[in-house]
């Protein structure tokens, strides 16, 4: 009797988990499968949706929207258009890349140095500084964009990529996370190196960095996801549409180009999905260690 109940509840839990899993996967899967539909098929399926959205006023359209998983005919023409015929999409993709890559590399490098300092130097001043970093990290964009805008304005960086890249490099998130990783390095390791006469720089490059290689990787992934997805900063700091990343541009593609929009959407998620598949364990480790504000 007892055993039966146990199996039943296990089955029920699995079903619940499966339902959640399907719900979580559905939007992504649908985006991918829809990207292989031709423009005509998409218009037939969703036409009314995007017309009413972009037309502003809601006009009731009687046609039902049919959600299809599998395209009637697999079409690659929209991918061909995006990749070979209209360079503006690839240009926006490139815009995203040259915004995000310097931020990821820069933020991790600056943070590695700062975190080492926070780990090695303990004192009242450090406590206060670390607290300031945490407060800054917790501030939403609505707050931080105002100082960022002011600096960009003063320095003439407004409407250049640097207005996003520079604040991105110095964002305190990675410092916080890396400090927590580095504090787990056994202090005996560092003391031993010091006794052997190693300089601080040598301890940093030869002991500290190799010890937290996976941490650096997982933080890089987290920073990448955050900035690959960015919308707020480019809208305010980059008024030139030619410099805007794909994330902003995607929302401006109009109804006549739904096929292309799906193809671009898929191309846009490929880098982050590849990173996810390759580095899921690192990502989980990174998230796990972001798990407590204290200590």
């Amino acid at each position, binding site marked *: 009797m007892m055993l039966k109940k146990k199996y039943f509840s296990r089955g029920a839990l699995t079903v619940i988990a499966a339902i959640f899993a399907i719900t979580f996967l559905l939007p992504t899967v649908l*985006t991918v499968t*829809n990207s292989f539909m031709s423009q005509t098929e998409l218009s037939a399926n969703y036409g009314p*949706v995007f017309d009413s959205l972009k037309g502003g006023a809601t006009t009731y359209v009687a046609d039902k929207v049919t959600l299809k998983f599998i395209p009637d005919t697999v079409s690659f023409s929209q991918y061909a258009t995006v990749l070979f015929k209209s360079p503006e999409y690839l240009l926006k993709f490139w815009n995203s890349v040259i915004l995000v890559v310097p931020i990821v590399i820069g933020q991790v490098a600056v943070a590695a140095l700062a975190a080492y*300092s926070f780990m090695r130097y303990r004192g009242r001043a450090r406590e206060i500084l670390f607290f300031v970093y945490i407060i800054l990290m917790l501030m939403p964009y609505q707050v931080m964009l*105002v100082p960022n805008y002011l*600096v960009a304005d003063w320095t003439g960086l407004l409407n250049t990529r640097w207005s996003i890249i520079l604040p991105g490099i110095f964002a305190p998130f990675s410092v916080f996370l890396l400090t927590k990783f580095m504090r787990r390095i056994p202090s005996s390791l560092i003391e031993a190196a010091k006794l052997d006469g190693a300089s601080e720089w040598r301890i940093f490059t030869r002991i500290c960095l190799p010890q937290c290689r996976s941490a650096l990787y997982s933080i890089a992934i987290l920073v990448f996801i955050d900035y690959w997805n960015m919308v707020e900063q480019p809208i305010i700091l980059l008024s030139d549409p030619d410099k805007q990343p794909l994330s902003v541009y995607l929302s401006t593609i109009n109804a006549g180009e739904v096929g292309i929009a799906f193809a671009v959407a898929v191309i846009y998620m490929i880098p982050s999905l590849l990173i*996810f598949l390759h580095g899921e364990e690192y990502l*989980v480790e990174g*998230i796990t260690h972001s798990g*407590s504000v204290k200590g």
Partner: protein
Amino acid sequence: MKKLALKAISLPKVHKEKPRFTLPQGIKIPDREKLVRMAFLWPSLLGVGIFFLLPMLVVLYYSLIDNPISHNFVFLDNFIALFNNDAFKTAATNTLTFSAIAVPLAVILAMGLAILLEAKIPFKSQFRTFFLSPMMVPVASVVLIWQVLFSHTGVFNDFLSIFGVTPIDWLKSEYSQIVVVLLFLWKNLGYNMILFMAALSNIPRDLLEVADMEGASPWFKFVQVKLRFLSPTILFVTILSLINSFKVFREVYLLTGDYPYGGLYMLQHFMNNTFRSLDYQKLASAAIVMAIAMVIIIGVLFIIENKFGKDVEG
């Protein structure tokens, strides 16, 4: 070459002479090592100072003067004007409403998912991957599908019409926030779930075993043992979700553009419009108000957590 090398070697001798001056008592020069360790912090400190701290002080200053040309102190006038501003009030109400709905759901559902994955079910690691995957998908990539699901002629309406519900355009209705809450949950639950999974695995097994032996009910075990150990995580996930819920403008913007339906007019929309008109006083006072609100909310959460989870922390 040789000369140079000699010079380098002979240099330290100079320093061996007696110091020419002595420092007044009580002032210590930090030793060289300490300075080197601190030097590692300089790049970050310089950047944080230039891009965040100093301009934040200027923002504070701007919020207290009448305009950037005459620099007259008006103290709280800007803040009073801000609180009388209808657009700000709408935006603040909408954002807070959204947070009030989305944050508790994000915490509770994520905890539920973590507990679900802790149970003995098959394909655990696959489920974890699936739950985590939305985090990696850029919002811009899935808004198309979201529009298909929730538009007037969309799939969601089709489904509801089975139960006799008249179709509405979800994004332009009073329920518009629900659509965004769902997108928010879809995106953020995975991250929160991982945090809870880590916390759950840190609960000492023997404590749960003792509870079992004493004949504790599953509910008692959950409330008295698990929840207490989870409380720091609950706090962190709440703060994190709160910050993320302030970021939800991103989703709204990608779904509906610059001018959404009233219920979706968020604080960031307000800021965008104020940026466009370059009203520095309004921007500055709004930023200061939000910063203070954020600090207060986080402070309160910390106090609550301290009271509740005190007896489990070392």
